[in-house]
């Protein structure tokens, strides 16, 4: 378990994260400069907070009021950064054994062998770091951190420097270790798909603070604030005012007309924002009667972008003038894009399913 609630000052930057991590993987997600790496450094003891408290696995390692500040070498956690930082003068086996000096020789050898096998590093044990590949180096670094059998693992973009194929393989291995060894893992990334792929929960961080920490699906489709919605790439965010309560949800008057939000509650007259993920907007087929009737809008495609597996359509809603280049974005997979002949037609209908429209309270 990791408990974090501290304030630190780094130059003009104010860092004040609050987190609580059980036996799970929590991904610290946010733009560069949000304070993600600094948060990890503080937990590892490499950065001293000004105030607050940090506890690892039930043991207080920092408490400003009690005057506790355990040095990094006594905190007992695994810490892995983007560069493997293997000791260049030690062999792979000696790197892995580095943190095991407190163990008797036989146990140390057994531990090294076990983690060499676990990470598939056989045949490389006698090699120097300079003589193995980037992916192998990161595996060695992971073995070195895991061999101490910490209950807490801090990972700072550990896969960012690797090739896509190696990254995918190591991601699933990471998940497996975390579950098998019962670890509390805090992983930093600014890659949304990696955050979603690895995290049981996602903590969205911005300007030194944790804005929201929830199950990954919740953070993705029910952001707690407009800023979280932006950071989680929710590309349709509409400002509006609550005008009523209907059978499908809260009715909100927006620049695009009245939109029903099935996700959230609010009182009449309240100013709110609505968030709809681009992949949840439904582009209606022309050859069938519409199945969803709420939030149905006639639109024109003003531009589009192809991403290979998906297409993004930029839409203007017919009959309203918002003064923006486009009013909505829709992501659709390439197959329906081709089958429906989207490339040929510009005029379509879309619907925003009420349950996909998330209501964000202002202020």
């Amino acid at each position, binding site marked *: 378990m990791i408990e974090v609630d501290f304030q630190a000052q780094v130059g003009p930057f104010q860092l004040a994260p609050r987190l609580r991590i059980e036996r799970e993987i929590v991904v610290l997600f946010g733009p560069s400069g949000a304070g993600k790496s600094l948060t990890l450094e503080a937990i590892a003891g*490499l950065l001293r907070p000004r105030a607050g408290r940090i506890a690892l696995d039930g043991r207080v390692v920092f408490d400003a009021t009690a005057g506790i500040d355990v040095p990094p*070498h006594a905190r007992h956690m695994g810490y892995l*950064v983007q560069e493997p930082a293997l*000791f260049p*003068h030690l062999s792979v086996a000696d790197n892995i054994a580095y943190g095991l*000096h*407190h163990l008797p020789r036989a146990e140390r050898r057994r531990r090294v062998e076990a983690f060499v096998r676990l990470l598939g590093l056989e045949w490389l044990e006698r090699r120097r770091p300079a003589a193995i590949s980037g992916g192998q180096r990161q595996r060695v670094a992971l073995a*070195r951190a895991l061999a101490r059998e910490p209950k807490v693992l801090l990972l700072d973009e550990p896969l960012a420097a690797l090739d896509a194929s190696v990254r995918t393989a190591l991601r699933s291995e990471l998940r497996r270790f975390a579950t098998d060894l019962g670890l509390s893992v805090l992983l930093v990334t600014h890659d949304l798909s990696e955050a979603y792929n690895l995290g049981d929960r996602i903590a969205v961080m911005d300007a030194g603070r944790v804005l929201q920490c929830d199950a990954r699906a919740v953070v993705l489709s029910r952001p707690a604030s407009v800023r979280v919605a932006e950071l989680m790439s929710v590309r349709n965010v509409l400002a509006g005012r609550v005008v009523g309560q209907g059978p499908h949800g809260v009715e909100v008057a927006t620049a695009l007309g009245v939109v029903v939000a099935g996700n959230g509650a609010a009182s009449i007259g309240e100013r709110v924002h609505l968030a709809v993920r681009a992949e949840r907007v439904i582009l209606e087929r022309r050859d069938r009667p519409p199945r969803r009737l709420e939030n149905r809008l006639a639109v024109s495609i003003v531009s589009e972008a192809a991403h290979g597996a998906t297409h993004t359509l930029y839409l203007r809603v017919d009959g309203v003038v918002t003064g923006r280049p486009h009013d909505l974005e829709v992501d659709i997979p390439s197959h329906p894009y081709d089958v429906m002949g989207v490339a040929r037609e510009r005029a379509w209908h879309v619907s925003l399913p009420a349950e996909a429209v998330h209501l964000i309270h202002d202020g």
Partner: protein
Amino acid sequence: MRTAARLRRRVTWVVLGLWLACAVLAVFIAAPLAGLIARGVTQGDILDALSRPFVQATVRLSILTTVLTVAAAVVFGTPVAYVLARHRFPGYAALDTLMDVPVVLPPVVGGLALLLAYGRAGWLGGPLHAAGLDVAFTTGAVVLAQMFVAVPFYIRAAQAGFESVDRRFEAVSATLGAAPWRTFRRITAPLALPSLAGGAVMCWARALGEFGATLMFAGSLPGRTQTLPLAIMQSFEASVDDAIAIAILLVFVAFVVLLTFKVLARVGGRAL
């Protein structure tokens, strides 16, 4: 095309200039040394000169004092170099500059200062003399004079070595449960080792050639304070051949030591 041709011609002239500069300097350094060796080989007997008891005593004294100097440099200089490389504190610039002063200072000035401090009438030497301990004009004084002049060479190299060790390695070592001393012993020092060794060699070479400070502070007493450079100076008045023989010995040692060190450094660099 004509531009390219002109450019190529100009490059050729530049390259020629480079080689010419190298040749001039190489001749400038090699010619006197070659002359020295030629003179020693053709006139007089080097081995005979080197086997004289006073020369052998001088060689032993030079070895003893320079080894002690290097040992002291490593023991006292390593912490200083580490502090200068890893910490910033009030007075940093002053300490940093102080360590460079002996390099710039004429050694004679250092010898004079040491004499004024540790001489029998000196502000430190006085009380020591009263306690029955005389420093000036002893073998110990030779070591102190050599240290004054040579230790900065070790400190500079060691400091650069520590600075070149990526601090991430030290941070990672700490997160792997290594206390600072273990991190220094297992990570920082081994990674800085080529620089530490290089600094020790430079320090040793500088101590071996030390003349001015030693003469001023320790004198030139055969068997007690007369090191090889001082012996050359004294022999020069009595027998030029002896002076030349000792000089050739020093040239030989300097060449062998530097060559060995460079080869070792290359092998060590490859092993990393």
